[in-house]
């Protein structure tokens, strides 16, 4: 990092420049045939069919939840092929529809300002020269599996595929903050991005972390994803990586790092993405006026992916089963599997350990009966937390983590 040109930190001018920068052709998107086939997410109560689409740039076959702004879900069979989710099938979630469609890597700047000694305007060429780290980490939407809540709740009606695992390459946020020189009295760091609300005065999407968390050496600014640059829809040219925390903090198209001398009291921290301040974020359906806190650390989860839910197979006395697990904010300790509704559990073998924030493969074998076999998977994480049998409920549809069941019919 030679000279950081503080004068380049003119946010307003830079953003306007990016918005208007013409790179190549900028014609209107042809309206491709969006719907290719339908997939049934099997959400309780129905209205669960969604089209598959390959119409989005940088994206292969995805479950289409919403075109505008994009909500794209990863099909579950993708998770059976590798613990790393391919970039072109990694889930996509945007809040606001004004998403820059052109990014010029020479003019893009990442601005660091606020309660610091030296405001910075960092070019991508400079970012690439900083000390590097690479880490595998699961990026999971706060509302992943919201569509499975009972009673159902409003919001994006995700199945289980609003998540993915990648090897993130980038720099430590701590190193960037240290270059700027955080002043005494800093409390939080707020992260902003290039996407914008489409209507005036609406709250721009920004999230904040406590200063000690931001400086823990794990939180990253990533420019690489599974060895390649990020797809634009996953946050090109760089995004925040907050290992072990829900995706709402993993700000995409990150271009603003603001050190705050007090807590962020704006909408997206103070009002949105709040969970009940109760064990497991659980309240009784219909509860109201409970205290809330910003969603934060993830919890253990696991899925069977070797066969789709509802699959009919020829009867055998036992079958191999496998899938993925995540520890949440720590590693996976063990995964057990049951085919009799949780009465009998069988040990599974864990696959390669790619790091404590990564998905981990599990494989095992369960006996079958003729008819429907409810196959359940249960993960314990290295903090000793196990997935509960009983689902939670909260009005935001956040933090589902109970044991999931995949029903296999042996005929």
């Amino acid at each position: 990092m030679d000279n950081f040109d503080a004068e380049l930190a003119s946010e307003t001018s830079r953003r306007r420049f990016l918005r208007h920068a013409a790179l190549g052709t900028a014609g209107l998107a042809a309206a491709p045939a969006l719907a290719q086939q339908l997939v049934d997410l099997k959400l309780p109560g129905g209205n669960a069919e969604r089209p598959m689409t390959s119409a989005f740039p940088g994206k292969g076959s995805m479950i289409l939840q919403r075109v505008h702004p994009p909500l794209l879900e990863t099909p579950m069979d993708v998770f059976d092929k590798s613990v790393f989710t391919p970039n072109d099938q990694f889930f996509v979630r945007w809040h606001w529809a004004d998403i820059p469609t052109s990014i010029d890597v020479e003019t893009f700047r990442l601005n660091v300002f606020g309660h610091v000694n030296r405001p910075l305007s960092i070019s991508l060429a400079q970012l690439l020269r900083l000390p590097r780290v690479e880490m595998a980490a699961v990026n999971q939407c706060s509302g992943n599996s919201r569509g499975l809540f009972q009673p159902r709740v409003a919001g994006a009606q995700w199945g289980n595929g609003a998540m993915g695992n990648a090897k993130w390459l980038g720099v430590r946020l701590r190193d960037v903050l240290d270059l700027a020189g955080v002043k005494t009295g800093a409390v939080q760091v707020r992260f902003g991005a290039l996407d914008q609300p489409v209507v005036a005065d609406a709250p721009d999407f920004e999230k904040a972390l406590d200063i000690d968390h931001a400086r823990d050496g794990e939180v990253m600014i990533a420019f690489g994803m599974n060895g390649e640059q990020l797809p634009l829809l996953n946050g090109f040219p760089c995004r925040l990586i907050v290992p072990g925390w829900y995706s709402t903090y993993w700000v995409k198209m990150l271009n603003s790092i603001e050190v705050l001398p007090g807590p962020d009291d704006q909408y997206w921290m103070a009002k949105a993405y709040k969970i009940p301040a109760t064990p497991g974020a659980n309240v009784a359906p219909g509860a109201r006026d409970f205290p809330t806190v910003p969603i934060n650390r993830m919890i253990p989860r696991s899925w069977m992916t070797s066969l789709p839910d509802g699959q009919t197979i020829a009867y055998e006395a036992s079958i191999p089963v496998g899938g993925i697990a995540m520890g949440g904010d720590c590693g996976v300790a063990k995964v057990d599997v049951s085919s009799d509704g949780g009465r009998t559990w069988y040990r599974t073998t864990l696959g390669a350990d790619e790091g404590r924030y990564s998905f981990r493969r599990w494989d095992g074998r369960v006996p079958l009966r003729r008819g429907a076999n409810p196959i359940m998977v249960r993960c314990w994480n290295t903090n000793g937390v196990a997935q509960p049998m009983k689902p939670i409920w909260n009005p935001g549809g956040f933090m589902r983590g109970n044991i999931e069941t995949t029903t296999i019919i042996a005929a």
Partner: protein
Amino acid sequence: MKTPSPGIMAAGLIGLTGIILVSIGAPSSRKAPAPISETSEPAPPTSVSARGFSLASTSVDLPVDDATYPDGPHADVINANCTSCHSASMALTQPALSADQWKATVTKMREVYKAPVAEKDVDAIVAYLTAMPSQKAAPATGKAQDPDPKVAPDVSGGTG
């Protein structure tokens, strides 16, 4: 996105004004129309690289959603009000919600997300939403916590 301090802003303007004016011409506050035609071959994307990793400039086209809300009472009102910020599918894929829940959602769109929806249109929009065929779906079945169909308005702020 917080605006940087006036000092930084001023310095930035001095440093960049010339470049920006040449580069972009007259600024406007929202998206400029796309050029109708490009006569020359597009240049290869610029890139930056260091220490064995490269980043290339990227330009994409996002699919346009021209889907509208299906016919029904007040479809004209919801189509006029509720397709620019988000696809109609956002509402069409929702589970069965009560009129109170729908009203709370429309109110949140107006008051929190600043959707330019006239107050006089709110009741018609809620009437359309509650009458969508998907709202008459079979009640949720399952074993989760003895579900109570009466659900309080979302106090979590939602989204995700």
